[in-house]
């Protein structure tokens, strides 16, 4: 073995080079590896922020509006950092795990407000429209009637239903990932999605612009 006859300092360099060539010199490091590395070098977690912050912020904005996304996206990463030791890459991709944390952080925030609201009945009952998805379009004024109808229908869903359909359709999660993120059985994911689709069909004008093949073509 050539390595065995090299001076120890060179062997060390070769080891380091080997590590570098596999990780930092071209080959991408997957999220799970960064999470693992951050357990001993916490600063490495910043790389995951750089990779996923936009995705997390955008998801929160789509589900709950820009204001809450601005307020909560940082919390998602702080929580993820705190809980990184419990991340299990065999159960979910890191991004899916982040979606789950984002969903929990959002619900926690809304729940803390709801606590006060419940205690005071309908004293201030008013619909929150700050999360109307139409506000996410910079060119909302120019949206077509059809687009407005679709966006309006999404905005009219309950927040839980909106989370589900947007994670599936806009964020591209699979049934299995949805089950992991939302902590429900996969069968529940299917039935809830079916119900949400039905609700959307009710809300959308029957213009004949779509046919109902969603159930047949659904992702596994």
């Amino acid at each position, binding site marked *: 073995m050539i390595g065995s006859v090299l001076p120890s300092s060179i062997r060390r360099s070769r080891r380091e080079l080997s590590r570098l060539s596999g990780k930092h010199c071209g080959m991408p490091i997957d999220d799970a590896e960064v999470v693992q590395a951050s357990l001993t070098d916490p600063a490495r977690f910043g790389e995951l922020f750089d990779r996923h912050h936009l995705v997390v912020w955008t998801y929160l904005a789509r589900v709950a509006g*820009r204001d809450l996304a601005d307020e909560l996206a940082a919390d998602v990463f702080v929580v993820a950092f705190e809980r990184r030791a419990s991340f299990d890459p065999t159960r979910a991709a890191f991004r899916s795990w982040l979606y789950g944390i984002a969903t929990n*952080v959002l619900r926690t925030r809304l729940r*803390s407000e709801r606590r006060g609201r*419940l205690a005071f*009945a309908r004293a201030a009952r008013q619909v929150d429209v700050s999360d109307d998805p139409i506000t996410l379009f910079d060119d909302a004024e120019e949206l077509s009637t059809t687009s407005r109808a679709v966006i*309006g229908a999404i*905005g009219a869903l309950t927040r839980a239903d909106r989370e589900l359909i947007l994670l599936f359709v806009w964020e591209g999660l699979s049934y299995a990932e949805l089950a992991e993120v939302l902590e429900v059985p996969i069968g529940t994911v299917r039935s809830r999605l079916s119900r949400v689709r039905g609700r959307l*069909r009710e809300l959308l004008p029957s213009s004949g612009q779509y046919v109902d093949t969603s159930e047949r073509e659904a992702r596994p």
Partner: protein
Amino acid sequence: MNIDEVVAAHRPTPLPQDDVVGRHRSTLDRRIAAESTAESQPVRRSRNAPPAQIIHLDDPRNGDRSGHQRRSRRRLTTVAAAGVLVLAATVGTLSLRSEVDPPAAVDTAGAPTSTMAAPAATAMAVPTTSAAPVALGADALLLARLYTLLEVGTRTEAIAFFEEIAAEEANVADCMLAAGFQYTVMDPTEDVTRLPWYSMPADEFAARYGLGNSGAAGHLRLFDDLRDPAEDDLLNLTSAQRQAYNTAVGECRRSDPNSEAVRASNASELALEQFRELVPTDDRIVAATATWSACLAAAGFEYDSLQEMRNSFGTAAAYSTSRAQLEELFADEVVTAIANVPCQQVFDAAYRDVVLDRLGDFTRLYDTALASGATVDAVG
């Protein structure tokens, strides 16, 4: 196109502002730096050490929890339980209140913190049919309002408070009907019956819901069946209809932003927030907090304040990433909450006394806010 494709075709792609990204990165970096610093320091466990995840020092499963989240807590068993029972027997009749939410936890009860609708604040307003400011001479009603808003109210006081709201809401409902919207007003007694913190004895509530909605129980969705039945009014509205609904509610509630009713509402809202800050600084509350802390310590749980106790579980619940973790946490929370019942009853009694004694302070705060023309924006 199927329905999924229709939705997918209208996917917005918003972008955060640059300063938001930088701010978020700074937040994370501070947290990372805190852990890096902590790891380079000797492990220090202090009663005041932040933050707040509860662990059992005698539980081998704690090995997977981050060091910075550790706080000491002793789980004593039969001796402490006996102490709690003695204390419970001593103070069991002090309060009719069945809710266990701490009065000191003022973060959510009345102050809107985002674009969500303000919860309690507008309830402090006088009825819209009256031009008079809050009837400060009616001490009993004012006290009922304050006690309920400060979360130390009894069931009877809550009903009185809700009746007042219902009277206001009936006017709003008429106005909304004229605007073409259904607006259901519920019977106040039904409201109180529906909400378990009023309808259940405190110990039963603690056993079933722990410390309440902001702890693990909320995450486990134990309160989801408490949805306001009147929310059904809103279920079938489109986004545009919701906007119109909101506009109508606003117009029905406060058609004239300069009216005395609105000014009184704003003033009472601001006064309440200031009063919330004032009461805990009272020497008697400081002493009551120490007594409460000692009471809970005797049962084996070390916290310096009710808020610290609640926050510790709230934080841990928010950090939980699985139902199994939540359920484990909730089991701890229930044990703590049950031990807390007699301790908090003593504290609440002291709190009520201080509120009663300092009612004049509230009226002065209200008068000052009214004279200064407080606006909703000044609140919170």
